[in-house]
Each structure stands twice: as structure tokens, then as C-alpha cells.
């Protein structure tokens, strides 16, 4: 009986719990993009953390290159707290 519990009920419980948690904690799809200029290749697009915005102490960078909100140097240079 005990063996049966471990063999069947325990994995079933774990799977059910994980599936339930996955649906319960479904996060809002975040689709924030940022752009950086690569000499010779032009503007590139990457996804960035939610923290990256118009203000903050630290620059949001990709491979050491400043990220912008639009494909334009005149747009917001993204920063994070």
C-alpha cells in the first residue's frame, strides 16, 4: 500500500501541483523591446528587463552598448534603478 502510494500518488500529486501552479502564476506577457546601434549593421532589437525605462541611475546596455526606446538616437536612452 505504502509502495503504491509512493509509486503512483506522489508523482501524480507533484505533476498536478506543478500544472496548477503554472496556471495560477501565469505572468503577464512582457514584451518590452529596446534597440541599439551596431556600426556596420545598423539598428538591432533585443528584449529587455521591465526595469529599463526613462529614469534610473544605471544605463541599460547590451554588450556595453547603450539601449534606446526607439531606433533613433533621439529617443529615450534607457536606464534602470
Amino acid at each position: 500500500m505504502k509502495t503504491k502510494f509512493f509509486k503512483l500518488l506522489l508523482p501524480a500529486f507533484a505533476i498536478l501541483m506543478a500544472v496548477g501552479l503554472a496556471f495560477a502564476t501565469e505572468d503577464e506577457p512582457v514584451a518590452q523591446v529596446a534597440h541599439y546601434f551596431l556600426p556596420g549593421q545598423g539598428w538591432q532589437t533585443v528584449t529587455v528587463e521591465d526595469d529599463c525605462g526613462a529614469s534610473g541611475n544605471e544605463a541599460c546596455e547590451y554588450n556595453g552598448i547603450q539601449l534606446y526606446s526607439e531606433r533613433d538616437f533621439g529617443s529615450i536612452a534607457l536606464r534602470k534603478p
Partner: protein
Amino acid sequence: MSNQGIHQKLVTLFSLLLTVLFVYTAVSKLIELDTFQWRLERMPYVAPYATLISWGVPFLELVIAGLLWFRRYRTMAFYASFILLGLFTIYIIIVLRYSDSIPCSCGGVISALGWKDHILLNITFMVFALLGILWSKKQYNMQSHQNTT
């Protein structure tokens, strides 16, 4: 209680924890498959394989979670867990060389973790998988030995 008994219980516990982790992250990815694929398309190195990875990783995670509950395949599943988590960790470390502004393409609330927390989480589960390999192998060998004598 003997060491063997404790090890057996811990192996079951590690299987349980890895199952919850893999099923949770796989289902979270599959619920938001489009978003997951979209994020992968913007990640360094893996972008050309975004479609393959977006289907392959959750599938692999579910297969491993299933195999963890078959005594015969348990050691193999622990090895697969260790390798998969290791690959994720290596990839994170490589990505961090680019930028720490890149969001995580992982499933569910785990995507809310910072990169460093994520590495810590992966390493913890890698340790579980490693101990699972050692102890389940020992158990399997002892059982095989008992069956042959």
C-alpha cells in the same frame, strides 16, 4: 534508520522537486509559447533555433519529469536533469557577458528572478540531480546484486 533508507527517501524527494520544477516550467512555457518563442528570437546565440528550442525544451522537461518515476530510468533522468540544468546555467553565464538587462526566457514566476538568483536556483537543483545520480545508482546496483544472488 539506515543510510540506505535515508538515501532512498532523499532520492524520492529530489525526484519530486525536479518533477515539480520541470513540469511547472514546461507548462508555463507552453501556456505562453508565442511569448517564449518571441523572447528566444531576441536572445544571443539561440535566436536561429528559437522554434526548435521553444518546442524542444518543454518536451524534454516533461520527458525527464516522467522518467524520474521509473526506477529503471531514474539514474538516466537524473543525468539528463543535471545536463539540462548545466546547459541552462552555462548559457546564463555566457549571456551575462553581454548584458544584465536581458530578461529571462524561462517559464512562470522563475522569469521574475534575477540572473544571479536563477544561477543559484539552477545550481541547487544540479546538486539535487548529482546526489540523485550517486544514490539512485547505488540503490539500483544493490537491487541488481540482490536479484542475482
